[in-house]
């Protein structure tokens, strides 16, 4: 219950406002950049830009359609049929989330160089994103009141008619939300398109930056990319809003099970192909390179240093994100109102911005505002905060909401000040959820690519940047240990997600899925309410 009529204390509002200000730094850059209208027109109205936009939209559209088809079909099979070993399949089908798109792209293009280009980008991105559709649709299917389908059947509808007239309309908002998430991911992806040499916004923006930093061109293209992303985010928000109004109380009862019968074999073959392409092929390839690579191919010292640097940066990012997320999450959970909503939305900026845009923006911020830390650790950590603050805010908010308000009131009666209640009751009770959020930020930071590439401190290499350098020169043996470690780290949350997804009535927000640019997003995305 909200504390109506009580204003949030300043010691919560002030740090929350700071978090919001940091999250909005890229927006400040974009606004300043958009100021030079003449240059905007100059870049926008060229044939190259139009072609670039068309290519980006084509890739986005094709991948979204394919990923949605695979995701919905797999979700229906998992939720409604007598597929053997459903739980194992569910984990297996979520595991592709553990393979960052740039690693998947490297594996496939090394195995089949002819894939480079549109086909390869479609393949890799589809495999990397279909779980975004699978998870929310599966959750929605498990939430559909079986009585609805039973009533429809009793009214004379066959199995297909029930699916078409009852089931699909019930889960359509979840499909839409998942599909838009896929679109956002594809638009934001940098690594896969770069390795597949398919020129879309992110790759061209990176090129403009690399080739002597053509700031105007990079900025204008960033603006255009963000404009498209914002349209998608708005659409996604609408889809989620509808999804939230539809969902009723969770129902534990099992729905009728559809017997696959003879169709079992083609279904198993299809699911097996998806899992093989998404997980097994990349995992076995990397394993093979590790095993067959000559001992001299890997620089042990460099590997150790990169690992240390990655862990250190990820720890810093996790701590910074959680420290800033606690005031925002507590404010959003306990003092809901216009102020809290505004602050929370601001911190979600990073959720909508492609990583490459955040990177370019932070370069600008570094040059203009924070010259002393340009190309230093603090600026990189700041950029990670912009990107991953939404993860931590979601975790804190969910954990605080789950801790009962009544206990906080009792603590007040027992003599604690509001700050004492936060320290002695709210945070200890929410600690497991907050820690999970921190781990999520940590693991996600370790595999982040574009921001790390652009902003890593001079002379410091991380796992991702070392891997990138080896991938660019096709040095499989040298790349293998880095790729293996990154995939293993990313597999942890993916496995957890796959296992949680099978619980029918999981509390909303507990389940997490990977979001655009390889970031993990709260499961509100999975058909629940938007924060």
């Amino acid at each position, binding site marked *: 219950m909200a*504390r*109506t*009529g009580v204003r949030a204390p300043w010691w919560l509002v002030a740090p929350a406002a700071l978090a919001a200000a940091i999250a909005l730094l890229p927006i400040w850059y974009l606004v300043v950049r958009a100021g030079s209208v003449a240059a905007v027109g100059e870049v926008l109205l060229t044939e190259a830009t139009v072609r670039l936009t068309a290519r980006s939209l084509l890739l986005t559209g094709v991948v979204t359609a394919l990923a949605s088809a695979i995701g919905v079909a797999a979700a229906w099979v998992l939720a409604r049929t007598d597929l053997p070993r459903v739980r194992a399949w569910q984990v297996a089908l979520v595991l592709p989330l553990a393979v960052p798109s740039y690693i998947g792209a490297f594996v496939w293009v090394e195995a089949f160089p002819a894939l480079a280009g549109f086909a390869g980008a479609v393949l890799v991105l589809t495999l990397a994103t279909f779980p975004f559709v699978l998870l929310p649709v599966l959750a929605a299917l498990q939430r559909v009141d079986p009585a609805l389908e039973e009533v429809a059947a009793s009214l004379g509808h066959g199995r297909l008619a029930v699916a078409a007239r009852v089931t699909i309309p019930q889960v359509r908002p979840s499909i839409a939300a998942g599909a838009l998430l896929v679109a956002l991911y594809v638009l934001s992806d940098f690594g896969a398109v770069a390795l597949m040499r398919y020129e879309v916004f992110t790759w061209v923006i990176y090129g403009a930056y690399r080739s002597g930093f053509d700031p105007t061109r990079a900025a204008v293209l960033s603006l255009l990319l963000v404009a498209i992303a914002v349209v998608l985010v708005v659409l996604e928000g609408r889809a989620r809003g509808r999804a939230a109004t539809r969902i009723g109380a969770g129902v534990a009862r099992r729905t009728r099970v559809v017997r696959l019968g003879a169709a079992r074999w083609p279904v198993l073959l299809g699911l097996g192909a998806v899992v093989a392409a998404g997980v097994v092929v990349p995992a076995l390839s990397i394993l093979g390179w590790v095993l067959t690579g000559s001992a001299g191919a890997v620089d042990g010292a460099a590997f150790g240093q990169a690992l240390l640097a990655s862990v250190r940066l990820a720890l810093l990012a996790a701590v910074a994100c959680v420290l800033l997320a606690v005031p925002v999450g507590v404010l959003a959970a306990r003092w809901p109102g216009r102020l809290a909503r505004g602050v929370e939305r601001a911190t979600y900026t990073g959720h909508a911005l492609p990583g490459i845009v955040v990177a370019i923006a932070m370069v600008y911020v570094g040059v203009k505002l924070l010259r002393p830390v340009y190309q230093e650790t603090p600026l990189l950590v700041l950029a990670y905060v912009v990107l991953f603050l939404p993860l931590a805010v979601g975790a804190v908010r969910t954990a605080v909401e789950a*801790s*009962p308000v*009544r*206990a906080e*009131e*009792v*603590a*007040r*009666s*027992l*003599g*604690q*000040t509001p700050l*004492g209640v936060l320290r*002695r*009751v709210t945070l*200890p*009770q929410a*600690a497991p959820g907050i820690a999970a959020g921190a781990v999520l930020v940590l693991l996600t930071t370790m595999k982040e690519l574009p921001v790390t590439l652009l902003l890593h401190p001079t002379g410091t290499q991380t796992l991702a940047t070392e891997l990138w350098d080896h991938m660019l020169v096709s040095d499989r043996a040298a790349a293998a240990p880095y790729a293996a470690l990154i995939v293993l780290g990313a597999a942890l949350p993916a496995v957890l997600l796959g296992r949680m997804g099978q619980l029918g009535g999981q509390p909303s927000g507990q389940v997490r899925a990977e979001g655009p640019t390889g970031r993990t997003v709260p499961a509100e995305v999975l058909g629940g309410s938007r924060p």
Partner: protein
Amino acid sequence: MTAVLDTSVAAPSLTRAPALQAAGITRAFGPTPVLAGVDLVVPRGSVVALVGPSGCGKTTFVRLVAGFDTPDAGTVVLAGRTVVGPREAVAPEHRRIGVVPQEGALFSHLDVAGNIGFGLPRRGRTDEGRARVTHLLDLVDLSGLAARRPDQLSGGQQQRVAVARALAPGPDLVLLDEPFSALDASLRVSVRDAVMAALRAEAASVLLVTHDQDEALGVADLVAVMLEGRIAQVGTPEEVYARPASAAVAQFLGEAVLLPGDADGATVTCALGTLPLAAPADGSRTVLLRPEQLELVPIAPSATGSGPGRADEGPIAVVQSIAFHGHDALVALRLADGVPVLARSLAGWLPRPGDQVAVTVRGAAWPLPA
């Protein structure tokens, strides 16, 4: 009160003040008034039950007393200290109130001893604190469970820990908000008895909020009936049950037989005949009888044909329906002139629907205030 005349006052007057004095409390949420001027006193060391139907404003009132919300107007004085006045509202942590919410709301990150010691100096980590925690554990009959986690306790045990936690700092007032309603019916009575015994042993001043009139009548020294945002009546359980201030109070506290009658000083004439009055009244008045005051006498089939029965058997009624409760039964009747009445039958004998019975009345009728 006699305290005013007591000249041997040695203790400071503050300690003589009631645990709670609330006056003129109003609170509206938006355009909806929830509390429309509530006055309530909880004497020191007594248990007052605040009872009323769902949505009458009980919970809003206790939240205002605890300091979780602020009234639009009115004053709250706790043990002589004004905590809510025209321009002030003392924070909850300075009110010295113990709160026991419906769900217990134990701190899930602390064990039982940690929960109980939470409100003590240094959160109970002193010799005195540990002794106090041990004492309270004994009091609520949970010694041996000090190291348990809240999720390892049953609902009844959790509620007893919540009460011990509220009692630990020796609060001036303990607020219990529907503390037993989340428990199974089978557990409720035993947990309630244990909790009330602990509260009595600590001589706590208690405001118990409940929607269950049996609970209120059964455990409280005083019952305050709240209807539509006002206190409709305060009195001992016997007073409010037998001598309610209004028809609404009478009906909320139990099954009621309300009959129009013609009062003539000591007696009243109504559909059940001429009955003695519990208080003198005159003129046209509504009188209250409780169903247990109505006694049913079977009429032999042979007697029905021979006339209206003997005078001491009382008026004849036809049984409409019977709600059987095991230990008793509630019989709905219709008198000869069509007036419906209820009778509680404790006897082994039960009539059947359609039977004709004679109705006699025990005790006096209560004339509702005009």
